[in-house]
């Protein structure tokens, strides 16, 4: 029987008093490749953050491999790729330093990095095609390359489950294809993947399950919606009162404005 990676029951989240998740039930089993979709402000990012315990629930429960986030101890099983346009920090860090930090959940305090750590980092850099940039400052890279660094950081930890918040947003077509290739390898290795996406693009064939979030609730959960021209794209049929607001954002195109 396969393990359950995430199990949220009646999950509610309020940010600054505004309800963002209004009772979400979501269970992700090992080996699933789940795309979480929805309009801007629908709560899909909050949903994955709440699944990880990064955003506290105001109601309901969520379990990570059977434990509440506060009592979860096997964080090395999770690889998180945050939504990020630029790599933070006021001090430069090399690509290798950032990617190596993905191993931190696997290392005990004071235990030095070993051969296996270095090899995992080298494999992760290789997978995203940044081996030759390992010594460069991560901040000096382009947006797409920085996204690759963040993906490599998750890969370096060799987790069982990947959680990616908009890994395809704002990256070039080459990086999208590379991401698709990388995910295909992870899928064939039986890894669990939960990703937030505005548009699936080249990731489409890999997705086994589509979850559409609308106004803090799950509006669709099942096979990924088939793309049949722009109007059948996920989210389009779920145009809601906030759509006008959302369309003002930088990601307007996909919403299929009339």
């Amino acid at each position, binding site marked *: 029987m396969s393990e359950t990676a995430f199990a949220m029951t009646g999950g509610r989240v309020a940010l600054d008093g505004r309800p963002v998740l209004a009772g979400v039930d979501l269970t992700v089993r090992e080996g699933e490749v789940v795309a979480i979709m929805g309009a801007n402000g629908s709560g899909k990012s909050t949903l994955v953050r709440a699944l990880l315990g990064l955003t506290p629930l105001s109601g309901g429960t969520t379990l990570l491999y059977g434990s509440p986030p506060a009592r979860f101890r096997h964080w090395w099983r*999770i690889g998180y790729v945050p939504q990020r346009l630029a790599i933070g920090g006021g*001090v*430069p860090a*090399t690509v290798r330093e950032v990617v190596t930090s993905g191993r931190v959940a696997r290392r005990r305090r004071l235990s030095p990095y070993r051969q296996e750590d270095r090899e995992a980092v080298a494999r992760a850099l290789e997978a995203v095609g940044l081996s030759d*940039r390992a010594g*460069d400052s991560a901040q000096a890279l382009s947006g797409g390359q920085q996204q690759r660094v963040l993906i490599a950081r998750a890969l370096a930890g060799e987790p069982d489950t990947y959680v990616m918040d908009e890994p395809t947003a704002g990256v070039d077509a080459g990086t999208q294809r590379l991401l698709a290739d990388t995910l295909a390898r992870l899928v064939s290795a039986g890894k669990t993947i939960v990703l937030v996406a505005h548009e699936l693009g080249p990731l489409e064939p890999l997705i086994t399950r589509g979850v559409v979030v609308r106004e803090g609730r799950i509006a669709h959960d099942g096979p990924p919606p088939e793309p049949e021209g722009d109007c059948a794209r996920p989210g389009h049929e779920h145009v809601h009162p906030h759509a006008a607001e959302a369309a003002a954002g930088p990601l307007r195109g996909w919403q299929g404005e009339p």
Partner: protein
Amino acid sequence: MIDLSLLDKQFFQLALIAALLVGLCAPAVGTFIVQRRLALLGDGIGHVALTGVALGFLTGTAPVLTAVVVAIAGALAIELVRARGRTSGDVALALLFYGGIAGGVMLMGIAPGGSNAKLNSYLFGAIASVTTEDIWVIGGLAVLVLGVVTVFGRELFVLCQDEEMARASGLPVRFLSVLVAVTAALTVVIAMRVVGLLLVSALMVIPVATSQQLTRGFRTTMLLAMVFGVVASVGGLLASTASTRVPPGAAIVLLALAGFVLALGVGRFVRQGRSQESNVSQQAGSVRVKEVR
């Protein structure tokens, strides 16, 4: 000229040791603080620590010890405001800073034997008056600070780089945040005698800013910053022997700033060379990818 005959004098040897320890510790902690985009944290703690110093005079306790206690309390308060992330945070911090300075001046005025001269020695440093007892305290704190950086450095790097990632890696984020704040407070107290509370933060920030003009990685930035820190603090101290009219604290900070300006020019040169180099390697890389396809 620099008066090397002073090297035989005990007060000067003590001053040198203090300068060395501060030059090492302040940039090491400063690297994490700058990475966390809290460059002014040291200034805030410095202001609050003044109240601690005055409290020492008022109660007849060693000012360094009361400064440690109050600086840690202030650092924790600042961390609390930061972690809450409220928009009014910067106002809350400002209030804390003013309260720290005003409280210090007030308590110092009330304290028996408190004087403006004493206040000045803490505001702007009085490295020449460092005693053997001071050196033990400073040395102990320095060991603590460098110990924290060594033991927790890897986790602190993740925390200061990306707090969310630290959380998703199961790191004890609250504990580490408090650790950064407390370590910064200890550093402020160490540096207080050397450059003074108003300039403490300079030694935490300027060497790091200097170093990152020339480096690409975190570890090299920190190590180079520590080198710059020692050069500035020891160099400034030596420069101050030229005349009794040269205050050591200010000499140290100005030397550090001069180093920054120099590195700014050198760094531009280095980066130009690098960007040409990486353009070439990028082109080579894209050729290679095409070949693979």
